[in-house]
């Protein structure tokens, strides 16, 4: 069963508006691709997942989602949109491991596994993006823990939040008393007019619209 709502936090923002000529928007897309590809930013260069984790650690006292990171929080990387070959770049796992290296969370447990490929959100029109139920149906949970109190799902990008909601719902099936929340390195916004800047930490909700089966993310 799909959860009605999920709290999420994200650190950075990019604008997905097509054909924008704004240098800020173009730059934010380059940062998004650097994150998705596990590339480096800054001088000296730092791998993006490490940069995200360092920034969360550095600013933890002021971040709106600081309460997500407790000593007993289990960090669970979200699977990619398709099953992976061994040794494939897995950015959410890198973010989670770097967060743990910064002393955030108790341990990393890759308990969610994608067993059936779903279309990639970035290559789907809004109406064709996979819904929470498709994500739910395409993932399984490897029951690796006795009775976790808190789980924080970790992903690189959150768009509508359907992946998070599908994964969170899977986990709650197995651990019904566990508190599940979500963190993404970056959130996508559609319109240039809503884009403030790349470094824009927010806390919000992903809400399931049962009638139509999709999600609304705010902010």
């Amino acid at each position: 069963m799909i959860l009605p709502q999920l709290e999420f936090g994200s650190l950075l923002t990019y604008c997905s508006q097509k054909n924008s000529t704004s240098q800020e928007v173009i730059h934010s897309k380059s940062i998004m691709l650097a994150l998705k590809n596990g590339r480096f930013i800054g001088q000296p260069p730092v791998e993006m997942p490490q940069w995200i984790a360092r920034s969360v650690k550095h600013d933890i006292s002021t971040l709106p989602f600081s309460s997500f990171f407790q000593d007993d929080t289990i960090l669970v990387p979200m699977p990619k949109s398709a099953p992976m070959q061994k040794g494939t770049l897995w950015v959410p796992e890198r973010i989670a491991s770097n967060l743990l290296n910064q002393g955030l969370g108790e341990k990393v447990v890759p308990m969610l596994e994608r067993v059936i490929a779903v279309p990639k959100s970035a290559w789907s029109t809004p109406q064709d993006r996979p819904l929470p139920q498709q994500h739910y149906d395409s993932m399984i949970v490897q029951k690796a823990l006795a009775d976790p109190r808190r789980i924080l799902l970790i992903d690189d990008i959150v768009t509508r939040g359907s992946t998070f909601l599908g994964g969170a719902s899977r986990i709650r099936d197995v651990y019904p008393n566990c508190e599940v929340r979500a963190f993404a390195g970056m959130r996508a916004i559609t319109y240039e007019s809503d884009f403030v800047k790349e470094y824009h930490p927010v806390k919000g909700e992903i809400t399931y619209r049962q009638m139509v089966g999709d999600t609304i993310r705010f902010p």
Partner: protein
Amino acid sequence: MRQGGGIATLTPEMLLGPLNDVEQKYAPARLFVAGPMEIPLPSPRVSIVGSRKASKNGLEAAKEIAKFLVRKKTIIVSGLAEGIDTAAHTSAISNGGRTIAVIATPLDKSYPAGNAGLQEKIMREHLVISQFEIGKRVFKQNFIFRNRTMALISNATVIVEAKDDSGSLHQGWEALRLGRSLFIWRDVLDDPSVKVPQDMLNYGAIRLDELEEILPSLPQNESFLEIAQ
């Protein structure tokens, strides 16, 4: 050194910037390059690869994909083989674009020999890259190593035409391992005699119907990215 027509020896990091450990796994220790293109390489870069014995439709598709990407200021990467590779390079050049040939022989050899003239032109005006030292013999495995390197150099890969034993499929699997976008041209997937590209869809490859679908994968800038806090 390269401006005088010479060969430079570079590390992959000098060519591409720092590499993560997944990228380092199969990256060659050094690369031999010839041509005037700036280093580190400008972006975006897209590989267009496929069969040597290509069909007329495959050759046309390779030319059209290269032409479209050149209009989007993308550098066309390919392997200088006959068929799809040659179509991709020549379309890039004839449409005023830039191209990189990643070859499976040392820089002083050409394979096929009939592409020696094209190789010389790309060395003179664009860039040719080899991971094989001058004087070394050419082995069959060179082509697999070359395909991995081509995946590493490219922000995305497009397979235009392939059979289940095509070398370009090695590049496809490597692109997926690196987390890069792998596009498979629709005609490959619509051919019921070819199975492996269908399997690749189950591991994250993307069916390419409209050329615009390539663009979201392509960074406009990879150098000196900073985030203001």
